[in-house]
């Protein structure tokens, strides 16, 4: 009974401290937990690998802000590198004002890193990659992109006229986009699925936060999306697929966190079991 009372009266700050330690220790002493590639992640990878031709166009929607950056940023980075390896042009688009900052950060980091490790095949802003300027009113923007992408945005996020950019060569509507992956933890994903996929048949994959992943599995089953990256685990799986094929010397942001994720999950399972046991013991004692 002493132990039950101790657990019931435990200051929650001790649990916060425990979680912090469980997350920090695996970073310092990594174990390298095994990871299985799930079919929804493999599906996105395979599509980019096999179905987008050289100099094709990959549209990446960065509809998130710093609050979900930890999960979605590694996904967007991994897909950008994948496009670079396959000589596929990358267009970033955002329906969130804060998404502009996210997109520019990915472009800066990936270009800088890529050009440092691949000086013989450098990538260039405006030629291989760019971020379209933010335009408010996402439903109208997504619909208008189906009619005329350059007229929807006029310029990229760096103030360059889209007509003058070689990355935009031959891109007029969704018909000229080979594939799109939408990264978001919000309902913007649905707008893309309703308008871009439903109305204009744009082939789509989804990259979403773990919180929203369960919700978006429906769209895999119905065939509206061909793949799904769910949370940090989805990003880590994609990084693994990429590093298995390519000699990638950069930091795999998602993969390095997987040990900490597993450790934290074990702690949570133990805490839930412990909490339930003490709850039922207390209930039983009170019933006597």
């Amino acid at each position: 009974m002493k132990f039950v009372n101790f657990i019931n009266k435990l200051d929650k700050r001790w649990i916060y401290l425990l979680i912090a330690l469980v997350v920090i220790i695996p970073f310092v002493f990594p174990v390298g937990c095994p990871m299985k590639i799930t079919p929804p992640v493999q599906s996105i990878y395979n599509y980019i690998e096999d179905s987008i031709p050289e100099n094709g166009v990959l549209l990446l929607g960065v509809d998130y802000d710093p609050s979900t950056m930890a999960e979605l940023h590694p996904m967007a980075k991994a897909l950008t590198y994948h496009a670079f390896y396959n000589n596929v042009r990358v267009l970033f688009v955002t329906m969130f004002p804060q998404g502009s900052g996210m997109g520019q950060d990915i472009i800066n980091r990936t270009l800088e890193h890529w050009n440092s490790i691949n000086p013989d095949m450098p990538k260039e802003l405006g030629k291989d990659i760019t971020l379209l300027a933010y335009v408010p009113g996402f439903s109208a923007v997504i619909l208008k992109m189906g009619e005329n992408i350059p007229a929807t945005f006029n310029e990229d996020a760096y103030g360059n006229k889209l007509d003058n950019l070689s990355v935009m060569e031959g891109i007029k509507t969704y018909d000229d986009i080979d594939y799109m992956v939408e990264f978001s933890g919000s309902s913007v994903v649905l707008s893309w699925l309703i308008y871009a996929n439903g109305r204009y048949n744009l082939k789509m994959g989804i990259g979403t936060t773990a919180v929203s992943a369960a919700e978006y599995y429906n769209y895999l089953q119905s065939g509206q999306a061909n793949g799904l990256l769910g949370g940090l685990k989805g990003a880590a799986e994609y990084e693994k697929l990429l590093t298995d094929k390519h000699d990638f010397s950069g930091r795999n942001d998602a993969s390095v966190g997987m040990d900490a994720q597993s450790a934290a999950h074990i702690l949570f399972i133990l805490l839930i079991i412990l909490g339930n046991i003490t709850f039922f013991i207390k209930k039983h004692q009170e019933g006597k």
Partner: protein
Amino acid sequence: MAISTNIWIWIAALLTLAIYSFLYKDNPFYKFAEYLLVGISIGYGVSIYWHNTIITKVYNPLVHEKDFLVIIPLILGLLMFSRFFKSYSHLSRMPIAFIVGAGTGLSIPSSFEFLFKQVQGTMPASLDVGNLIIIVGVITTLVYFFFSMEHKGFVGKVSRIGITFIMIAFGAAFGYTIMARISLLIGRIQFLLSDWLGIIK
């Protein structure tokens, strides 16, 4: 180990610690970081709207390209500000009516098509175990949310199966939520240990 010498990394790291200090107890550092976030988010949003909307979509077409059609949406937009003046506030209904009308018109056909695809997804071509679970899950969950009949007898039994499916869905969503929250902590810890303190690569 190489501690960062970049001032912005230091600012980001100290603000992260200020936010996490709330877990111990509410304090002025947390309050400062919280207000700073709200202020900067609004300022950033306003500057993005100014450059990407007012300048690109209104000023440039009107002044440089002499596209006077822009005046129509501009007037509609300005009418929204009539809400600040009691005697003219009714004028704001015009742009609202336009937004509601156009938005509804645009979304209804596509939304129906979208919904039909979801319904189609519950009508599989082959009847294997997975597909059977989907069919039973959809029907029993819908019965649970059918409130025109009392949940007794056969309907009661079916709705109880429905709530089992709902509970499983909640469990999956809760598991994913834990994963998401831990991921956010991992992201910050990774930043502190790597970008700031240089303990890990």
